[in-house]
Every structure is written in structure tokens, then in C-alpha cells.
């Protein structure tokens, strides 16, 4: 519909294929069986060992439940807060076409947040409580959304790099052991690929425009590259939750493995754009992987702790939206009550 005319992104089809394969595996699991026929004593352990799915009312270790709630809630919060940096540009998009695309993208992110809150609620928590924990800082969201979007090119860089990193992170989650989370991720990943492509296209257009436009695109990439690398979390040596998550098959790859995968895909995509990644030490190793400079993890922790460029602004905006919307929620409730009274 939008007549995109950009080169295919290398590596792209393969990631989408993985989403499709995860979906096929879900539907193709066969009749009845969950891999644990014979009434195992440790039902949970047997399902995990057989690569089956845990479903909402199954018995599960309390730590598994808690860990999933934390991860899914933080994922949901990231989608919701993630609407802000780009939402900031909807009214200033350079054309009606770009505005329609950006609006659709930001609306998708709201949808992702809602799929994820719904998945979290299957674990016995209430969305309102999760919201509360986001607003009072007890639960976090991805640190990437605490960086500002200074120019239109930032919208391109976010789509390409931030959504790109999110896809690399999320594709393996399509095979996560918790059914509702895996299913939500399949939905999300299918939608994400448009997000990444529209960003890549924005940068491609700018890169082939005036020298000023090309410089603007390069500047955006220079600012978003390292924060995007940091999205994969601390290095494996310092990652607190990783080992247990891998044993539970929530996570399938380590932070560093995913980061490497992202770098390997992105280097070539930057070349096609004719723009560069701000890392003078990028080198293709003999093993076929790119050696790269690590992001500044001290900065990552500073931003996570609340001292990034936009933390306060993001939460304030979220709180204002929640409070300003109170009358809508109350009115809808009152209207529903009134109609219920009328029809009974």
C-alpha cells in the first residue's frame, strides 16, 4: 500500500521464518499430548523437559511464576512507554504518508503492551497493579526509551535499530515455555517487521537525499547505535536472571549471543544504506562474526536506575495520561451500569 521501494534487508526473511516455524510447532503439537503422558510426578519439570508449554492454570514453581510476571510486565511497560519517543513526532511527520505510517506503528506498540498485560494477567496479577508498579518505579521498562528523539531521522533509527534489536530479542521468545507469552510474542513479531522496515526506509530516503538529510540520518545512527546494543542487557558475566531463565526455557539465548546476532545482521544493512555504524573497531572475524565495541554498561545501569536523559519526563507523561483519562474510565463504567439497569 505504501509503495515501499527499498532493498530487502539481509537476514530479515530468516527471522520471520523462525516466527512462522514457532507458530507451526504450536499448532502441530498433535492431538492431546503435551509430551508428559503417564502422569509424571513432576508435571512442570516433565513439560519443560519435553519442550512443551505451561498453560495458565498448570501447577508451576512460584519462582517461575514470579519471574514470568516480572519479565512480561516489564516487557509490556516497555511497549507502552515506547510509544512516547515516536509519538512525539506524529504531529511533525514530514508527509501525510509518513504520519499515517507512524500513527499505525505507535498504535501497534499500544497493542503489544495490551497483549502482554493480558498474558501477565493469566498468571494471576491485575493490570491495574502492574500499572501502579510502573508509575511508582517498582517495575522497570527498557532503558532505550529514556533517550530523546531529536530529529525526524531518529524515527528512522528507532525503527531500524531499536525495533530491529527488539525483534532479535523477541523471536526466540516465540518458543518460550509459557504458552500465553509465546503466543503473544508470535503476534508481536509478525507486526514488528513492518516497524523495522519503515524505519529502514526512512533512513534510506534520507541517505539518498540532500547532504544535510544524509548527515541527519548519520547523526541519528551515531546516537542510537550504542543504546540499541545495550538493549540486550548486561554481558553474560553479569547477568543475574539469565541462567535460571534458560533452564526454564523462558530465554533461549544469552544476552551476548543475541547482541552478536544483532550486530552481524546490522553491519551489512548499514552498508546498503551507505551510512556507517559509529564503531571504528568493527572487524569481521574468521568465525564469520563481527567483533564490535561493547556499549557503556555503566551508562545502562545509570539509565535503568532512573537517571537517563528522559526518565522523569516519560513517567510523568504516563502518569498524566492515566490521571487525565480517569473521567473517561469513570464515565464508561457509569454508562455500563446505567445500561445494565435498563435492560434487566
Amino acid at each position, binding site marked *: 500500500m505504501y509503495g515501499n521501494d527499498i532493498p530487502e534487508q539481509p537476514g530479515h526473511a530468516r527471522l520471520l521464518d523462525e516466527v512462522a516455524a514457532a507458530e507451526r510447532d504450536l499448532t502441530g503439537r498433535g492431538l492431546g499430548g503435551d509430551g508428559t503422558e503417564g502422569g509424571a510426578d513432576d508435571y512442570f519439570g516433565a513439560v519443560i523437559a519435553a519442550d512443551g508449554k505451561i498453560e495458565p492454570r*498448570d501447577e508451576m514453581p512460584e519462582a517461575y511464576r514470579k519471574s514470568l510476571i516480572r519479565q512480561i510486565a516489564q516487557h509490556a511497560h516497555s511497549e507502552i512507554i515506547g510509544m512516547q519517543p515516536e509519538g512525539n513526532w506524529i504531529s511533525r511527520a514530514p508527509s501525510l504518508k509518513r504520519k499515517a505510517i507512524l500513527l499505525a506503528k505507535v498504535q501497534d506498540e499500544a497493542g503489544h503492551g495490551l497483549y502482554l498485560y*493480558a498474558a501477565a494477567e493469566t498468571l494471576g496479577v*491485575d493490570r491495574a497493579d502492574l500499572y501502579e508498579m510502573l508509575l511508582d518505579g517498582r517495575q522497570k521498562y527498557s532503558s532505550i526509551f529514556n533517550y530523546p528523539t531529536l530529529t525526524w531521522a531518529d524515527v528512522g533509527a528507532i525503527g531500524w535499530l531499536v525495533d530491529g534489536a527488539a525483534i532479535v530479542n523477541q523471536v526466540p521468545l516465540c518458543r518460550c515455555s509459557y504458552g500465553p507469552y509465546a503466543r503473544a510474542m508470535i503476534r508481536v513479531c509478525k507486526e514488528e517487521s513492518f516497524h523495522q522496515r519503515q524505519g529502514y526506509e526512512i533512513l534510506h530516503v534520507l541517505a539518498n537525499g540532500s547532504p544535510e538529510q544524509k548527515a541527519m540520518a548519520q547523526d541519528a545512527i551515531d546516537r542510537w547505535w550504542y543504546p540499541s546494543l545495550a538493549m540486550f542487557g548486561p554481558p553474560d558475566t553479569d547477568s543475574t536472571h539469565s541462567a535460571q531463565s534458560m533452564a526454564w526455557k523462558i530465554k533461549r539465548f544469552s544476552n551476548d549471543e543475541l547482541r552478536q546476532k544483532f550486530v552481524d545482521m546490522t553491519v551489512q544493512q548499514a552498508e546498503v544504506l551507505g551510512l556507517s555504524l559509529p564503531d571504528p573497531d568493527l572487524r569481521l572475524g574468521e568465525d564469520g562474526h563481527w567483533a564490535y565495541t561493547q556499549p557503556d554498561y555503566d551508562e545502562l545501569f545509570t539509565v535503568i536506575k532512573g537517571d537517563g536523559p528522559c526518565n522523569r519526563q516519560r513517567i510523568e507523561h504516563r502518569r498524566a495520561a492515566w490521571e487525565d483519562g480517569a473521567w473517561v474510565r469513570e464515565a464508561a463504567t457509569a*454508562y455500563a451500569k446505567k445500561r445494565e439497569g435498563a435492560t434487566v
Partner: protein
Amino acid sequence: MSWPLWEVFVRPRRGLNHQHVGSLHAADAEQALRNARDLYTRREEGVSIWVVPATAISASSPEERDAFFAPAADKIYRHPTFYEVPEGAEHI
């Protein structure tokens, strides 16, 4: 004051059953339908939507999974593969 939870079922195409796709919060059924449209069918994923109050669903208990479904487990004669068909019989 939290809106009730609704389970959402979408018929992807004519000829297919409605399928559970997820849940959402809404004040009443009408709002639940509109929210479900915006949330689960932004890319023409459906031609019909059902919304059901989550509290209206009765579910079998996962703890009883073996006992509850046991009656079906030992009746393999309900499947056509149980039967031996003599050589040469066609269309059976």
C-alpha cells in the same frame, strides 16, 4: 475501580471456527467488542468477534487432567486405524 476482563474469540475467515486470541478489559460488551476490533483485528485478522466475560467461563481443572480425560484414552477402537481392512477392498 477496574473494568471487568473479557475473553476474545475471532473468526479469521468464513468457514473457520472462532478462536480464542486473548483478553482485554472493558466496561461493557459493546466497548469490549470495539476494543477487541482495535486490538486483535488491525490487519483484517477476523470477520467476526465474540467477547465473553471471563467470569462466565467454566474450565476443567488442570489437576484432574488425567482422570477427566481417561475415559477416552483406552478406546482406540474409536479410530479408523484400529480396524484391519482386507487386501483389495477399495474406497474404505
